[in-house]
């Protein structure tokens, strides 16, 4: 499927996921490639967010769930019960729908991820904070007020801070769960530009309700419907000549 021969970073095989008796993900298999952005689209409740939350084991926090199948990352099976959750989450970072900085200073927000990893060197921490903020295109806006409470920032700045916080722990994969859902158009553009910049270094998976956004930022698009992966392929192809009727109907707004 990959025409550019990028290495596969994550390989999901026959994944099923249940909330109690309700099956939210049905036999899904999909690959995510290095330095590519893969977008998940589909109507609300189709399982997009549930699926990407499997990739960093966030669904472990939800009681009464069950999962089957395999998701391989660097040879480890993420779904293996014995896997080190902390190790997976450090490799697979996540940016949430609503910006969720901690009620701490801007500096502390980013330093947190380093501190919990046991980093004590103050110089190294300060350096990483700056680097992460630069990568998240936020440094120039906050460099003079690193010790202000992060909640004083605007929504868009908060979201970029969350991205910087995620970058600081040096993940390999970054999951974006509708990162622009609560942002204005200008902030949205900034986040999208950032995603295009970040893909040079990371594997990126993004869930979005906004089909134009998927078209703008992604290399691959996965269309999900009622827990199933209906279509997956290069974005240019999925959006122009979809192979499945359902995909075409969704893209043309027949349901949503």
């Amino acid at each position, binding site marked *: 499927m990959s025409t550019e021969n990028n290495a596969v970073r994550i390989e999901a095989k026959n994944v099923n996921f249940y909330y109690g008796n309700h099956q939210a993900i049905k036999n899904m298999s999909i690959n995510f490639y290095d330095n590519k952005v893969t977008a998940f689209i589909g109507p609300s409740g189709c399982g997009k967010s549930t699926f990407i939350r499997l990739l960093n084991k966030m669904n472990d926090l939800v009681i009464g769930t069950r999962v089957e199948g395999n998701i391989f990352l660097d040879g480890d099976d993420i779904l293996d019960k014995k896997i080190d959750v902390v190790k997976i989450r450090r490799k697979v970072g996540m940016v949430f729908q609503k910006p*969720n900085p*901690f009620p701490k200073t801007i500096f502390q927000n980013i330093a947190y991820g380093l501190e*919990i990893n046991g980093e004590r060197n103050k110089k190294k921490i300060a350096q990483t904070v700056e680097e992460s903020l630069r990568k998240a295109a936020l440094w120039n806006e906050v460099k003079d007020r690193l010790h202000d409470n992060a909640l004083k920032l605007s929504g868009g700045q908060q979201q970029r801070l969350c991205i910087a*916080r995620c970058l600081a722990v040096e993940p390999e994969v970054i999951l974006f769960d509708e990162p622009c859902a609560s942002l204005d158009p200008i902030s949205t553009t900034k986040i999208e530009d950032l995603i295009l910049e970040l893909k040079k270094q990371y594997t990126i998976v993004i869930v979005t309700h906004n089909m134009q956004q998927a078209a703008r930022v992604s290399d691959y698009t996965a269309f999900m419907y009622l827990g199933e992966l209906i279509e997956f392929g290069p974005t240019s192809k999925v959006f122009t000549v979809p192979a499945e009727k359902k995909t075409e109907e969704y893209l043309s707004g027949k349901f949503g």
Partner: protein
Amino acid sequence: MKAALPPPPSKVTGGGGEILYSFKERTIKILFTVLAFASLFFLAGIVFVLFKESLPLFSEVKIFHFLFGKHWYPTYDPADFGVLPLILGSVWVTVGALVVCVPLGIGTALYVYELASARQRQILKPVIEILGGIPSIVYGFFGMLIVAPFVQKLFNIPTGLCALTASVVLGIMAIPTVASISEDALSFVPSSFREASFALGANRWQTLIKVIIPAAASGISTSVILGMSRVVGETMTVLMVSGGSAVIPGSFFDSVRPMTSAIAAEMGEAAVGSNHYHALFAIGLILFFITLIFNAAAEMISKKYRVKLGLDR
């Protein structure tokens, strides 16, 4: 006020309906306004009485002497109205009670929040509420019959009715206040903070210590202040278990007479209009100010907390 009334709805009720509607509306509004201001009225009345009944004392006893005098001999001739022993009695008992209720209350809150299973939570929370609803006289019994003899034997002291016993019993009484308000504060921390922390690879313990507790810190301090407020104002229990000597305490094994129990014990024997009578009201005034300060502090802290968590936007 008229402008604030909403326009009456369409005239479906027919002739006279509109007038009836606005009459009802107005009556209800006035009724609730009166009810709402009633507590303000009562507060003003209480403050007025406290001042009116305590001020005459200060024409005979200097305020400084009253507050810092070391001897409380209200029935001697000449009488001495130094309230310091009573204030210190309250302070010792309150500090002691904090030592009991802060770790137990916050510990309970942390357990219920973080570790308890849904079932345990279902049992623990109502039990804590019930503990808070037990009448203080029952705590008094418990203190006299169980804690005091135990303390007496354990430390081999002449009487178990002392500051330590009062501290332990009052501390237990204040646990529900501290525990339930702290638990509220913890569960008020948005779950998004938790998710963010986990997503960065933090474990449960790191998340609790470094994210959840700091975010709930102001709410937890509020719970401690309100617990203190409860302890300082508590009367019946201290009257029963603190021993009752109006002497500056030297240790937790000394018998003490906190301010509240002094008022309760002496009001019956003080002749109305006497200096002693006015002095007891003046103690009431001190208590009023202490709890006022505590409550204002709690209010200020919890307001700051809401702003800090971005809940006020």
